[in-house]
């Protein structure tokens, strides 16, 4: 049974982890490891480093379950953002050399196929103009500053800034709709 179906209150997940409930932890891993690995792999483009990030995120959740506050948001976005922070930090610290993507040819969608938050996010991102989506991903997923993005794309700095603003404001507006 999916964690989401089993727990209507994600605060209960925190309570169970605080009790050292390993079965709960395993269910969380089965539910969200695909999401976390996908995010880490997209940012780092290196399987070994991405697997380290997956372990790091889950160990943080196991050792300090209260780092997730169910009163401030849902678990899936929180895990995705925590993974992003760790991966981008790693990227910046190590000046990671991005080798060829090592993704499987056909990414598995079994883990997160039913994650409604992820499905909504994909729909919202697909609705963005490609140039806005591109600069948002270069900033948020590749850890580039506006100046670095402008240099990479050969676009004026003001254009890049404007696209980032418009893209993010559009996402916020669509989420509220």
């Amino acid at each position, binding site marked *: 049974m999916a964690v989401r179906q089993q727990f209507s209150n994600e605060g209960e997940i925190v309570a169970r982890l605080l009790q050292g409930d390993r079965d709960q932890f395993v269910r969380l891993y089965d539910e969200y490891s695909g999401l976390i690995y996908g995010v880490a792999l997209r940012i780092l483009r290196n399987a070994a480093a991405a697997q380290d990030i997956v372990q790091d995120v889950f160990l943080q959740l196991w050792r300090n379950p209260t780092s997730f506050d169910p009163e401030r948001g849902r678990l899936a976005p929180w895990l995705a953002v925590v993974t992003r922070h760790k991966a981008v930090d790693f990227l910046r610290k190590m000046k990671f050399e991005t080798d060829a993507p090592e993704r499987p040819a056909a990414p598995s969608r079994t883990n997160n196929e039913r994650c409604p938050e992820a499905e909504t996010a994909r729909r*919202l991102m697909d609705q963005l103009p490609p140039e806005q989506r591109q600069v948002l991903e270069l900033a948020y997923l590749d850890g580039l*500053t506006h100046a670095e993005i402008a240099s990479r794309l050969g676009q004026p700095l003001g254009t890049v800034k404007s696209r*980032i*603003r418009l893209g*993010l404001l559009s996402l916020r507006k669509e989420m509220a709709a």
Partner: protein
Amino acid sequence: MIGHEQFRENLALYAVGALISEEAHDLELHLVDCATCREELEGLRVAASQIVLAIEPVAPPAQLRQQLMTQLENRAPTPVAIRSRNVWFWVPAIAAALLVCVAARLWMQNRDLLSKNGQLTLELSENERNLERANNLIRGFTAADAQRVTLAASGVKVQPGAKAVYSPSQGSLLLLADHLESLPPNKVYELWLLPANGSSPVPAGTFRPDQQGKAALIRSQFGSGVTARGFAITVENVPGSAAPTMPIILVGTV
């Protein structure tokens, strides 16, 4: 000199990490004093989470699961067992474990702050709020007005049971239940605060027992100073109800 509107213009870039470090540092100083920008930033961060949440999931290698479980063996937290008779022994332990985890995290991150840029200043603030929440939990569970309620089955057989600790002043609530019957997927147990002034029961959270019939519910910011005359538990349809549905499974008064 940069004004409020310019800082506001930079919020979106900050939310996705696109500002250079000097710009980010200046904005963080502004955020300390500007509640409007802090609120807007929170919304933009939620929007930014969509970027990462939209990434297609990828199944990790099968051996990673086993490696992680092995790590758990080496880094297991102190289990907080729920027992039917001596659960109170663990109440301060839960709060203390929370405090230790948060404090340890704070210490490590504070050390990193010495060498990191100003963006971590905001993370420090968040950790301090977590620490305050942990302290609130401890104060709540040990407060003089902490109400300890033992709930018992209303039927003849005294099998299921639960204990609740609630502090109106601290807004903290802890429920530990045992021997609860399993429920179908479309049902949950719901805890109700019965106000001392006789007003309608207040929903206090839903939960489901594990395979052993045990359940725990922890709320750190619950209620608004409402004094309880007791608590009750009912079975409700997922995701929970605004008013209790009879029959009452467990009930107890102060």
